[in-house]
């Protein structure tokens, strides 16, 4: 799918030439082990680097230049996967052939170099006023989770189930660590990132591969780095509670249930576990949707998701606050029915068809191609949709029963309205 070239130790360029899109997409990913302190530092760093640089020293100047480059989209962000933390620089720019005029691509590569290597320094450190303001922005982003009740409930469940574990550490870090960031500490973080992180550079578009690799080598002159990052000792983390309820002024009850499974992304049973999740609550034909929503009309949404990096399964549903017990019992029943082998041929066929379709569809966007490849390249065998489809096809009812029996309910979290809530 992608052509990979190692340009320095620990630095790889992955290119994909296609005329499917009218734009060219870049993604530069800086990866290192996830820690809560680093997450805060690196998130502030992405905000500061996105704000301005030495050549475009104000946000307005940078934004005007991007407008001139036909609204080229450029942003930095942080994400996590498993116990790895990623700083990413994503750029999407219009393919020159669709413009009346323009030599946009060359300018975008130049800008990529400026953003990464020519920061907006003042006396050798990032400008204090910008750092201060962007720290506030990050703190506000972290706090805003509280105002989105579904996200808040899920974060609370994770904090209870896996305290101080990569599963519950936000890629944005914690407020108290963001507050500690200084212009000088950011410089250290920035220099470490450039010198030590493992780097994957992706390009998708109607490009000349050889020419692009040459241009990228010039624009992004990264040096060799150690590739054997110290392996994290596995963090042992267990739920602090099996049941927690919390009250806020709100109308709906948000039920979030967490389960553990020993099967993770790199486990040989991973495809079986994906099918289990599909039958349980991954799709509108699944048991949770058909029973909790359609049969009992208790919810607008009731679904499950499989977090394969951490070996966790989540069920979420929005229900009438007075029907908590009934909902939990119904959800338990659906899992029990799978454990007892109540799976129809139709459910199996549907789930396999949906998983295959979903993967193929995700590959119809440039970002989807980058993200899926970036994840699946960790698997020992080369990735293709066909290979995954073959693995899913082989999954039997017995396999699903076996998966269901390994799924263990750990924590129930329920967020709902107070007794004296308004209205």
């Amino acid at each position, binding site marked *: 799918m992608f052509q990979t070239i190692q340009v320095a130790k620990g630095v790889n360029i992955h290119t994909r030439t296609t005329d499917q899109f009218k734009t060219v997409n870049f993604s530069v990913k800086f990866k290192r082990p996830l820690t809560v302190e680093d997450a805060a530092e690196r998130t502030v760093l992405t905000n500061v680097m996105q704000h301005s640089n030495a050549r475009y020293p104000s946000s307005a100047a940078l934004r*005007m230049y991007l*407008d001139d480059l*036909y*609204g080229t989209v450029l942003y930095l962000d942080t994400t996590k996967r498993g116990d790895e933390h990623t700083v990413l620089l994503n750029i999407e720019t219009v393919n020159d052939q669709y413009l009346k005029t323009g030599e946009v691509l060359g300018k975008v590569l130049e800008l990529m170099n400026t953003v990464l290597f020519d920061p907006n320094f003042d006396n050798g450190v990032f400008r204090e006023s910008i750092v201060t303001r962007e720290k506030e922005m990050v703190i506000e982003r972290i706090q805003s989770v509280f105002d989105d009740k579904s996200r808040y409930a899920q974060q609370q469940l994770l904090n209870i189930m896996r305290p101080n574990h990569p599963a519950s550490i936000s890629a944005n870090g914690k407020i108290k660590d963001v507050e500690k960031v200084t212009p000088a500490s950011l410089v250290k973080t920035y220099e470490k990132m450039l010198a030590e992180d493992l780097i994957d550079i992706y390009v998708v578009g109607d490009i000349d591969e050889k020419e692009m690799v040459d241009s990228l080598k010039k624009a992004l002159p990264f040096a060799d780095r150690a590739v054997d990052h110290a392996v994290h000792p596995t963090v042992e983390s267990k739920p602090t509670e099996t049941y927690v309820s919390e009250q806020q*002024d*709100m109308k*709906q009850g948000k039920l979030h249930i967490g389960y553990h499974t020993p099967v993770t992304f790199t486990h040989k049973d991973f495809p079986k576990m994906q099918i289990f999740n599909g039958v349980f609550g991954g799709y509108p*034909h699944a048991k949770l949707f058909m029973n909790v929503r359609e049969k009992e009309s208790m919810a607008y949404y009731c679904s499950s998701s499989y977090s394969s990096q951490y070996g966790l399964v989540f069920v979420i549903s929005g229900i009438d606050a007075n029907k908590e017990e009934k909902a939990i019992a119904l959800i338990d029943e659906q899992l029990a029915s799978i454990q007892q082998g109540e799976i129809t041929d139709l459910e199996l066929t549907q789930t396999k068809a949906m998983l295959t*379709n979903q993967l193929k569809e995700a590959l*119809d966007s440039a970002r989807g191609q980058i993200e899926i490849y970036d994840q699946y390249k960790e698997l020992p065998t080369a990735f293709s949709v066909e290979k995954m489809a073959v693995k899913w096809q082989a999954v039997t009812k017995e396999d699903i029963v076996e998966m269901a029996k390994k799924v263990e309910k750990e924590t129930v979290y329920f967020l709902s309205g107070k007794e004296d809530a308004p209205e």
Partner: protein
Amino acid sequence: MKTIQFDQLDETLYYEKLDNGLDVYILPKKGFSKTFVTFTTKYGSIDRSFVPLGETEAVTVPDGIAHFLEHKMFEKEDGDVFQKFSENGASANAFTSFTRTAYLFSATDHLYESTKTLLDFVQQPYFTEQTVEKEKGIIGQEITMYDDQPDWRLYFGTIENMFHEHPVKTDIAGTIESIDDITAEHLYTCYNTFYHPSNMLLFVIGAVEPEKMMDYIRADQASKTFEEQASIERIEVSEPTDVAVQNRTLEMDVLKPKVYVGLKAKETSLSGREMLKHELSIQLALDVIFGRSSDFYTKVYEAGMIDESYAYDFSLEKGFGFALIGSDTNQTDELVEAIQDVMQKTQEKWPFGLDELERVKRRKIGFYLRALNSIEFIANQFTRYKFNDMNLFDAVPVIEELTVADVQQAFASLQGESQQTVFKVVPIANKAKTVTVQEGQE
């Protein structure tokens, strides 16, 4: 079947109006493995008063019925339609907006089976009192879910402030009380009036062979019978230019206040290329005045009045339109004042010339080219444009033509002070009541 070429964009669109009046558009996209199909009726939450098919007297139906009908289309005598889509590996969905109801699926295999499922389920209604009652619990939870979302409440609160009479002010899903009045008979009345093929548009995009697909759809539609339909008579309300309420605040369990300034549009009668020109002009003016490279943005960013939630947007349909500008902020009044101040200054002296316009035009052209990678965007937006007699693929050439005078003239439609409203969502201070009308004019 006609073909329409867009040379600069390297796209070919296939079109046919079928004998029953259905507009069918097919756009093959090379390199894609999925196909996305939307089947849309020009019928949304604002269509609450109309003359039912075959009758002479106008009726007003309960709020939220278009959305309720959308839900109920999925249930048939032999079960749930999602099951059939899943069997063929297709992801199906639907949505209801102010002016449209769309049914859609995407698939990478069994395209014709799923197309048949889509056409059949939308064209074969099945409503009973029992299934209607059952749905009230599900939609009740959907309404409650939105009630707890501060951003949704902010959006709808601002719209509600702006309009006196126009039904755009009522929530698309209705309320728990209004949906309780809905009966199977209501659903049939709405269905029969608004789901005739002549009021609908089918769009197929992605991995598709246009001739074969058009033949398939034509044959399917020819095999079904539809009553002849006269044009639909919607009862229109007269809506003043000024806003209904100037300022309102809603308390919710949030940490940080949120605010929108709403600008109600004066010009809402255009259609076709004129409307496209008007809409793009206003969007470009907003980009210069409120965009991230504007003086305004720099000022409010540096003063700490906005965060990453800052946004501005303009919506226009026949009969209503509005711009919204706002952010989560601990300085709601200061931000409102800054926005109003900028609006005031645009009236005193027009704030920009050709250089700024050319810059945001380039940005906008880039936006459309990026968006043309998304087959979902094309299908949804093409349909919206078409229902207003506009053409999505005209956007880039129209942008290229626009002058400063065009933009200035269009923006005047938003400039009146009496067209401004403010809505805030703030943390709960006093638990006694949730809504306080502050300087209301009602």
